[in-house]
């Protein structure tokens, strides 16, 4: 087993870091960017496209770079380090990943090509009010009539739902099962109410009223498994994104303990605080190990679907738990300044919380793992 990045992966990291950390070097720039529509920087998005980041996981035939989960994780970590508001995780990894897995060759070329070039923003409209991190749809129903397929119902929250050019929508099929469809964002019968998520990213309520939809992939097919797999892929990338965010929140906190003086000494003179910072370091490193491992499991063509799901669940459960701890402690160890919008650590905490509820919190995933503890005698990362 080897956790080192190869030269190409290192170069990718440098390139992504240089672009993102330059753009968001000043936290005020991020604040300004998320304050205004569309909530991210179009120019940075284009530069990410030029660099190949938006097509990273897609095959060259589909207009992408043909890279794998490890490369995606490398970029996700850089996104996390500056909590870049560009929707790499939700549009490229999640929505794009699902299109790559289920679309016809034509659909892949069109949708992924547009996504990779930065010309067209794709969003996955899957979550429904009242449902929690499932892979099926119930609130939006698909019907087949003379004019083809039509969808009715409400999707919420849809990350980037109001800004997307194309919506990938899951819907309950007439014969049972969950199908996937595409709908143009501005199509008739689509009402979108966009709003800010707690970390400044954008989400929306998307109401469909007989909106005309095109089946993604084979019409009428149950795609629940593919939806679950796309979310698992997103969890692996998100785990690394969270690690990037936690790492910086921790560094910022350590820096603050070094410089902030109370009672005539820097805060680092209080062991009660430095030990807590040390515990955060432990939490970040453990989360990092599982995140890297999960990316490798996903990159390995010999692993089974079940192994990939378990790896994603384990990595995200750990990242979610660590993110909660690091976020809460980063604010607490800063005192009042940590509560302010102008200072960064609060926004890191908000981002970690938002990721949690986008992808399922630690308890949700631990419950999934708990259901399988009887299946194995011990856990073995080497398979």
């Amino acid at each position, binding site marked *: 087993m080897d956790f080192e990045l190869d030269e190409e992966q290192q170069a990718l990291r440098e390139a992504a870091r240089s672009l993102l950390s330059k753009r968001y070097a000043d936290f005020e720039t991020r604040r300004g960017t998320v304050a205004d529509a569309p909530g991210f920087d179009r120019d940075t998005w284009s530069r990410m496209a030029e660099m190949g980041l938006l097509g990273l996981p897609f095959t060259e035939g589909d207009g992408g770079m043909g890279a794998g989960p490890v490369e995606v994780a490398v970029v996700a970590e850089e996104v996390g380090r500056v909590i870049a508001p560009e929707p790499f995780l939700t549009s490229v990894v999640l929505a794009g990943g699902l299109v790559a897995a289920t679309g016809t060759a034509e659909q892949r070329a069109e949708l992924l090509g547009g996504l990779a070039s930065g010309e067209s923003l794709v969003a996955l409209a899957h979550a429904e009010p009242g449902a929690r991190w499932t892979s099926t749809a119930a609130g939006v129903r698909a019907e087949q009539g003379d004019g083809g397929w039509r969808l009715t119902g409400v999707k*919420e929250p849809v990350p980037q739902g109001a800004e997307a050019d194309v919506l990938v929508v899951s819907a309950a099929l007439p014969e049972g099962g969950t199908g996937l469809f595409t709908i143009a964002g501005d199509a008739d019968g689509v009402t979108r109410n*966009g*709003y800010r998520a*707690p970390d400044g990213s954008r989400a929306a*309520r998307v109401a469909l009223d007989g909106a005309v939809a095109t089946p993604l992939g084979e019409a009428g097919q149950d795609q629940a498994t593919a939806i679950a797999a796309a979310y698992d892929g997103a969890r692996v990338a998100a785990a690394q994104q969270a690690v990037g965010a936690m790492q910086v929140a921790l560094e910022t906190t350590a820096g603050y303990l070094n410089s902030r003086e109370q009672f*005539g000494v820097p805060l680092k003179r209080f062991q009660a605080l430095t030990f807590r910072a040390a515990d955060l370091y432990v939490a970040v490193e453990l989360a990092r190990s599982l995140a890297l491992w999960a990316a490798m499991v996903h990159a390995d063509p010999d692993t089974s679907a079940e192994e990939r799901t378990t790896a994603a669940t384990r990595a995200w459960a750990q990242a979610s738990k660590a993110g909660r701890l690091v976020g809460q402690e980063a604010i607490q160890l800063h*005192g009042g300044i940590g*509560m302010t*919008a102008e200072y960064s650590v609060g926004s890191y*905490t908000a981002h970690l919380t938002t990721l949690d509820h986008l992808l399922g919190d630690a308890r949700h995933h631990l419950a999934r793992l708990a259901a399988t503890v009887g299946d194995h005698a011990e856990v073995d990362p080497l398979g």
Partner: protein
Amino acid sequence: MRLQLSEEDEAFRAELRTFFTTEVDEGVRATVRDRGELTKDQIVATHRTLNAAGLAVPHWPVEWGGKDWSPLRRHLWHEEMQRACVPPPLAFNASMIGPVIAAFGTQEQKERFLPPTANVDIFWSQGFSEPGAGSDLASLRTAAVRDGDDWIVNGQKTWTTLGQWGDWIFTLVRTNPDVKKQAGISMLLIDMRSPGVEVRPIELIDGGHEVNEVWFTDVRVPGENLVGEVDSGWTQAKFLLGNERVGVAPVGATKRVLAQAKEWAAATRSGDGTLLDDPHVAVRIAELENELMALELTALRVVANSADGKPHPASSVLKLRGTELQQAVSELVVDLAGPGALAFGTGEADSDLPVWARRSTPTYLNLRKASIYGGSNEVQRQIIAGTILGL
């Protein structure tokens, strides 16, 4: 020892319950129930409703509107208020500056300030913290220099909660730079409309603007606004902070939110049942209920023992654990909201997600403050270790 309330106390509680649930504006109570933000008018109007009924400052000396209740009755008053979603009387007035003026003020100051403080005709702000003086409050630098009978104040306060609504601010200022830092501090009452006072908002991570910076540039303050002796402010500050700690653990409100959380869990689909059937959720709720019960019983033990108005040293337990549980319940609620917690900035736009879910993340983020202000939880541990355990 005795388990039940006496008949008289039981009747007392019932009477309060009726008052709170019938006399306080339903709109205000609904806002609290939905975890929304109260307007200034709502805070003031509720406080006045309570004051008119003698329920705003029962813990003050009788002469100034106090009730001479037993500590148990005071506790019941506080709990019933929170259970009924009634916002407690403005803390700056009722629990902080009022008792200080009653204990340390001149007769003139009492007559001038206590009635309008009890009725929020003066909306008070607390001007203690400074950028360089947080946990280490005694290192504050805002200076007051004598000019005839007056004081001239220069400096900056920060984290002033609701300072944008404040009429007056009670401050700690440095009046003697040449002595041990605790010995050179005085307490001054400053009219926030005085020339040279500027209030600037600070945005917090939940998007709200509840705290402010307050700047003083050559602000002239009449000598009669000094509370207590010159350079004795630290004594009054300690008295005030002790009271702040007792009031700051909102057991009643946390219990109420937890009860609501069970309703929300029962209304949220999960697998074949609801979230309340999910053993993980149920265990977490059970644990929180038990911890809250232990805290409430501790509060009852502590109030029963607080002699002559001085907070029991174990009040640090209430602050420490009370804020932790308040935060833990808010965290439970975000988790119950699940993906719905993303729908934060819905504003006027339509959303199909329930209000409690949409408010869950800002509330969770906002409540991170509870373990920071009013003496951070690290400071409380320090007090327990030092004062109680002698370490």
